[in-house]
């Protein structure tokens, strides 16, 4: 792939004089050297981006691995720890629970938006393109556009003891169910999950609707002629055709769940207890409040690995068939 340009340019250079038989592209040595130089000078285009990336991502990445092998409080002398920090991450009850929380959030951040999005998209199939359609699109994208922090604040208010959710429950006579949703042990994590579902539902729905509008209507017609009902139709045509879009939704939402920080920080601060603490928040707390830089870094490496372990299979399974 990298040899293609040189061949093209070399041929062009060769065009000026008749090609000698038995010899491929006869480029004079000086010209050839210049060409090689020109090819290498292409690096100048890549260099600024690579430099910023190396300084502010690759170096920190390497340092994260390095820190994770030490006990360090960020100021004093670092003490070699070997894999001790990793052992802690995989055996400490609290840390395991925190990683578990992230997986619970996947149910809310990923499965609900994608599942509900599919149902809505199947029912709507083609969003009307008139002003109604435009307005709906615009509004459904709102949660994607505002800061996650704002979503956190809005929903903490909605779910608070005097908030709208409780007001509605009392309104229909379910006073017994009213509670401080984000403050109680059993409801805190699902409530945080609900906020994530709200943020991601619109994006998933529109993505899936867009994907559906590309499906050939003839497919549905022939399915109807074969006597397929709406459910058969959905399973046999819609779902397979949307493989790529579903993959995208799952990738985006799973990363949002595993790497969640903003919403949790604002809505609950990780509480009550450790009920809603997620790895991202724990890294922040360990590194900057508790000064356990080594342990925070080990958790960071594990988080990175978790994202890859979850996302790579999704990419594999849902790529369009390119072999």
């Amino acid at each position: 792939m990298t040899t293609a340009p040189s061949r093209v340019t070399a041929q062009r250079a060769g065009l000026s004089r008749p090609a000698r038989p038995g010899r491929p592209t006869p480029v004079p040595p000086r010209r050839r050297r210049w060409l090689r130089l020109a090819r290498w000078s292409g690096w100048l285009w890549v260099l600024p981006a690579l430099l910023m990336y190396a300084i502010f991502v690759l170096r920190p990445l390497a340092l994260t691995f390095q820190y994770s092998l030490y006990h360090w409080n960020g100021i004093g002398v670092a003490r070699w720890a070997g894999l001790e920090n990793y052992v802690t991450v995989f055996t400490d009850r609290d840390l395991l629970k925190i990683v578990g929380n992230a997986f619970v959030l996947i149910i809310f951040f990923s499965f609900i938006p994608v599942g509900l999005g599919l149902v809505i998209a199947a029912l709507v199939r083609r969003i009307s393109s008139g002003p109604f359609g435009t307005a709906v699109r615009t509004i459904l994208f709102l949660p994607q556009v505002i800061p996650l922090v704002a979503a956190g604040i809005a929903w903490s208010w909605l779910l608070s003891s005097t908030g709208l959710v409780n007001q509605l429950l009392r309104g229909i006579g379910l006073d017994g169910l009213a509670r401080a949703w984000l403050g109680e042990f059993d409801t805190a994590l699902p409530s945080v999950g609900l906020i994530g579902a709200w943020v991601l539902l619109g994006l998933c729905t529109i993505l899936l609707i867009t994907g559906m509008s590309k499906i050939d209507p003839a497919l549905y017609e022939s399915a109807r002629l074969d006597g397929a009902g709406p459910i058969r139709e959905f399973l046999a045509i819609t779902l397979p055709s949307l493989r790529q879009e579903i993959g995208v939704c799952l990738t985006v939402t799973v990363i949002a769940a595993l790497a969640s920080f903003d919403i949790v920080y604002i809505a609950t601060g990780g509480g009550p207890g450790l009920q809603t603490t997620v790895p991202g928040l724990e890294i922040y707390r360990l590194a900057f409040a508790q000064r356990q830089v080594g342990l925070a870094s080990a958790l960071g490496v594990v988080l990175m690995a978790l994202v890859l372990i979850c996302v790579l299979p999704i990419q594999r399974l849902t790529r369009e068939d390119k072999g």
Partner: protein
Amino acid sequence: MNLSRREQLTSRLFLIALVLVTLLPFVSMLSAALQPRGTVPDGLSWPTDPQWGNFVDAFNVANMGALLRSSLLIVAGVVPVSVLIATMAGFGLGHLRVPGGRFVFLLFLLGLTLPFEAVITPIYYQVQQLGLLNTRWAIILPLIGLYMPFAVFWMRAHFINVPRELSDAARVDGSNTWQMFWRVQVPLARPAIASLTILLFLWTWNQFLLAIVLVDDSTKRTMAGALGAFQGQWGTDQVLLCAGSLLILTPTLIVFLIFQRQFIKALLQGSLKG
């Protein structure tokens, strides 16, 4: 005909329900923001005497003028540079196909799914060593680096599809690579560049983690970071908190409504590619 009408109606009803769920948090915040200060508002109840002055109070308390300026400075530091160097790199990797480019591209891909939390600790110490903690540079410089995987990936995807004959023709016309880049390639890449600019603007404006870790002074943060500080300070005053939150998210909302077509296109493409 009858059936399709009913289908139309149900689909519309579903969409309207979804729209209501999306809007409810905003409406609830607005109703709380208009209650008299010092009261404990109900979830949703239109006040008999709406206190629009609460917004003025929140504007002053949140120091909105300084926040806007700070966010704009950070965006101005991050977005143009990121877009420029990513476009150049995309051009080098996708069109010039520099030797070893595949390896470099894979190196960039490595960062594509990287959670910011995983590298925030070393970034903190690095920024500290550079003596930039608590300045806007502390957000600007790392963000440019952190955006590179996506931005380069995005621009390379554009340049790899540009027909090679185009630059060959430019070369025959006697222009060097630099001129060809600016006169032929950049104008052609305008849609890709515009989408990237929108996405980077949005992500920078809404960046929270870097803002709270690297900058203590909330008037030197991004809008989202400042909102976090505002919540910490006024979290118990529900009326003021709602008014302040609405104010702080208004700029994004305005920009979004003006450019909504481009935003939605960029967001859809962005998630499809990323």
